[in-house]
């Protein structure tokens, strides 16, 4: 409908999210405004219940805002049909979860290749691309294993490989290190750093300060609103200017 020409991958304005229950209306997000430039590395922080995960789900096109505008890559998302949202989740966004969310019955290579099934890519190409990404995250020799045969850190690497399979412009990660020990967490953050170096915009949710310190910009949510927005490093996109 409206196209905003800008270098912003994400542009959110006056975003509200409310839940209606028998006990009344809960406002989870209240008037959120934010622009995220292409190539930035953003950490979203905040206590439990601050609305950061809901915000992440809206950014990831998994949930819809009650009102407000959300432009993803210049395209308005707020009133898209379910199929169009699925298409965005498939091609434009790579989503990484806290609980990895791999399919237990499928091999690693099939897990990584799964989004391509829904993009209509044929079997040989799916496998070839998935193997290449497994190599990138250092798990090529485990390609035929099942998720339960590898460690948590390795599973998260597979999930990241899956998020990358359709060459997305944006990676969204919801507490990607929440289930991992400190060493592994930092290894995973190094991987996100590398992806950011390659020009992919990374937005992640965390409640650990040392994880957030890997990012270039830190945003803090309290009670559904942004209370702090600080740039801690020069982003890769800004370096290039």
């Amino acid at each position, binding site marked *: 409908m409206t196209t905003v020409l800008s270098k912003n991958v994400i542009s959110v304005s006056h975003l509200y999210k409310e839940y209606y229950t028998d006990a009344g209306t809960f406002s989870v997000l209240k008037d959120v405004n934010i622009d995220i430039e292409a190539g930035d590395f953003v950490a979203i922080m905040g206590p439990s219940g601050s609305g950061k995960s809901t915000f992440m789900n809206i950014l990831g096109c*998994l*949930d819809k805002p009650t009102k407000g505008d959300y432009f993803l890559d210049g395209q308005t998302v707020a009133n898209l049909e379910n199929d169009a949202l*699925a*298409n965005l*989740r498939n091609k434009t966004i790579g989503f990484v979860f806290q609980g990895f969310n791999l399919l237990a019955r499928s091999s690693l290579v099939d897990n990584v290749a799964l989004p391509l*099934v*829904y993009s209509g890519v044929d079997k040989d190409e*799916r496998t070839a691309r998935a193997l290449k990404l497994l190599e990138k995250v250092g798990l090529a020799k485990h390609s035929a294993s099942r998720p339960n045969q590898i460690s948590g850190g390795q599973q998260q690497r597979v999930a990241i490989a899956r998020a990358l399979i*359709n060459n997305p412009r944006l990676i969204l990660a919801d507490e990607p290190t929440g289930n991992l020990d400190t060493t592994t967490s930092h290894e995973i953050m190094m991987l996100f750093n590398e992806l950011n170096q390659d020009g992919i915009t990374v937005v992640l949710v965390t409640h650990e300060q040392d994880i957030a310190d890997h990012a270039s910009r830190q945003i803090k949510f309290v009670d559904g609103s942004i209370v702090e927005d600080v740039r801690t490093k020069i982003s890769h996109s800004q370096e290039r200017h």
Partner: protein
Amino acid sequence: MFSAMFGEAWRAMGANRLRTFLTMLGMVIGVGAVVLMMAIGQGAEDSVKKSISSMGSNLFIVLSGPPSSGGARSASGNAATLNVKDANAMSDLDGVIAVAPLSMGNAQVIYAGNNWNTAILGTSPSFLDIRSWSLLDGYAFGLSDMRSATRVALIGTTTAHSLFGDDVDPIGKTIRIKASPFTIIGILESKGQSLDGRDQDDTIIVPLSTAQRKIFGNQIPGSVRQIMVQAESDKVMGMVEDNLNSLLKQRHNIREGAEQDFSVRNLTALAKSAAETTKTMSLLLGAIASVSLLVGGIGIMNIMLVSVTERTREIGIRMAIGARERDILLQFLLEAVVISIVGCLIGIAIGVGGAILVKNLTEASIIISLNAITLAFTVATAVGVFFGFYPAKKAAKLNPIEALRF
């Protein structure tokens, strides 16, 4: 895309083998029952049709004795109140094209060292025409044989086989029926089973006069228990029936309202109703079997609903990485259809196997038709789609966020 989904369906089914097997079993039993029941039903219909066409068309049988048996009366046909003269009079009626008086009984037949108990039928030469019964070999007896009561006989294939075996040609051989020698002049073509299940080929046909004098004996000459009458066409059947009744009443001096000493039965109508009965039975068998197919379908729906609930998180993951509603719908629908088609194929194999087994064990007529198999397959697939649709739709309509939280 489709092949990938097919693989997914296989894997999902393989993940819970016992459950998949039990769900499939409902389909297997349903399809197996339909195929088997239809084979039995069609076999029964077919054997009735064969019996009817072997009987001859537009037939009446006139039996001696009262039409209904009340009190202490012997069965109809036992008291020989009809005679050859009645038969001759009948042949002059309008619409009647042939008449054959019948006298029948069982007797021991001997050839060389073999003996066999068979049905002996004494009749006139027109009998073979009425029954459209032709000869495999030899020739039939004629009116002159009737007049002079020659000892000639036509032999049915079952009787011929029992007396002569496979190697001896019965034509020209002399057999003994009771004490009298008879020369076999012809072999009757095989007719198979009659409507009441008798083997029509286990018989010997001789001229009526010979049968009465040499075999049955002790009877008023010329009296018979049955007369077979063939009408010209289906249309005149009613008229001929009325004429037969009034003719016999007149000839036997039976007053209006008095009890008759004969009865006229429309064999063709009896045969038609027998055919109707078998058809109904066949339909009923199919209907009962279809119920189990329906139950199998409900089983599939039940297990698919469980599967959707169990795999809610998987559905959420798939949606989060880009699966559209129709992708999820197709995945679960495919699973239901694969279960029902595989179950159906096994069911067809078991149904056909069962039908062959029944055929071998009972020697009943069983017909396994491609139509029945195609029908069972189509219905099973439709059942899979129908009962798989609701669970699949339910899966496709899940909210990705809620599914992921599951």
